Each structure stands twice: as C-alpha cells, then as structure tokens.
C-alpha cells in the first residue's frame, strides 16, 4: 500500500480549544462526508432537546488528546478534558445529564483555537458504536481564595477506537463557529 505524501503548509498553529458541544451519540441519525473526508452534513433524530448541547467550559481548560498504538493492528484512546466552575445546581444538573448520556455513548464537537470544529464519538465506519463511554469527574474546593484552578469540576470523557476525529467542510465549519448550525443548541 502506498504511503500518502504530506506537504507542510506555512502558517501559525494555535494550541487549545474554545468551545465544546455534547450529544448522546444515538441522537445523530447521519453524517455525510465529502471526498476530502470532511463532514458536509449532520442530521439529528428527535426534537430540539436531542441536539448537541453547549457546555461553557472555563477559558483555556478544554484539552483533547489521542494516544494511539499498534503494530499489525492499531487502536487509540481519545480523551476530552474540560474544567467547569463554579459549582452550582445548574452545573451539577449538566454533569448528571452527561453521566446518564455516557451509559449509551456521547459524541463531541470541539472548536479549536485555529478556528476549526472537529467531531469525535461518531465515525463513518462505526457510526455511534465507538462513542465516549467512560467518564471521570474530579472536584477539589481548594483551601484558600488564592488557590487558582480549584473549586471547579474537571470532567474527562474517554473513548477507545481506531478512527481519528472528523473535521467539517468550510461551509459547515463556518456555520458552527458562527452559531448557526441547526444541529447545535448554543448557550
């Protein structure tokens, strides 16, 4: 099998993420991808409440990682970690809804600091069967007002699979960034 060529394009790369949207993976009824493997359409099943829901994370706290390994076979663990403060009933409700959703699998759209949106937890081959199905939560009050980074929930979702995230085509990407995507319920 021929190895693909890769040409480096010049331009700055900005690490980090800015926005986060969760949905029960079972609520996605279809994704359509172009020949460039970019998502050009997403359709959802059910009513408005089944759309991707925005979770307002703390600034510069959303981190997505992939740890892949293999030889004759390959697999990768994808993790999405984000911090949410301060602790309120609304945050507890949101966290609990995520705990319920994880039992059936969660799909995620994240917007990175390069202005690109990415979908994980739903793939062309496996559809919603490789969704995020593990969650860990961590809360630490801190001891004093100057304990920076404490008194916040850290929520981490984890999925194991073999396909990378999928980007969106320029039209849909602009729609997501611009707050106009019909499959997202924005804050």
């Amino acid at each position, binding site marked *: 099998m021929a190895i693909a060529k890769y040409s480096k394009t010049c331009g700055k790369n900005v690490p980090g993420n800015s926005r986060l949207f969760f949905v029960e993976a*079972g609520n*996605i*009824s*279809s*994704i*359509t*991808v*172009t*020949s460039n493997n970019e998502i*050009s*359409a997403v*359709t*959802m*099943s059910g009513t408005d409440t089944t759309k991707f829901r925005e979770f307002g994370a703390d600034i510069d706290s959303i981190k997505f990682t992939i740890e892949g390994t293999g030889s004759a076979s390959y697999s990768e663990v994808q993790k999405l970690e984000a911090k949410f403060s301060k602790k309120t009933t609304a945050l507890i409700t949101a966290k609990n809804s995520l705990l319920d959703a994880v039992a059936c699998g969660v799909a995620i759209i994240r917007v990175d600091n390069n202005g690109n949106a990415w979908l994980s937890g739903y*793939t*062309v*081959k496996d*559809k*919603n069967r490789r969704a995020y199905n593990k969650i860990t939560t961590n809360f630490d009050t801190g001891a004093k007002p100057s304990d920076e980074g404490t008194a916040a929930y850290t929520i981490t979702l984890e999925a194991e699979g073999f396909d990378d995230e999928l980007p969106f085509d320029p039209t849909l990407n602009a729609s997501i960034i611009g707050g106009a995507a*019909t499959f997202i319920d924005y804050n």
Partner: protein
Amino acid sequence: MKYKVKTNWENAVISATIKGFPSACKLTELSQAQLAILFEASHPGVEKVEDEKQKNSGK
C-alpha cells in the same frame, strides 16, 4: 414528489443509523424513500423535484 441529490453532492458518502439505511454509501445510491427521509431531516444535499406526471397533470 421525487427527490434528488443536489449537484456537487454526488460523491458525498452518508453514514446513517436510520433503520433500513445501508452501511456507508454514496447519497446517489439511496432510494427515493431514503432520500425523502433525509429531505424531511433537512439534509442540505437533497432536494425535492416535481416529477413529470405531476407536472403534466397540472397543465
């Protein structure tokens, strides 16, 4: 009414969990009934077209 895949969407591949849909396939391989489902779900790559019979009966 008939449904058709819009221009520039002919090579798009759909991966759907909708009952009765095939595994990942091109939009152009879907049946009229399946395109109708996508149209109702506001899929941007599918449009409704008036079929010839209806056009003629309207004359």
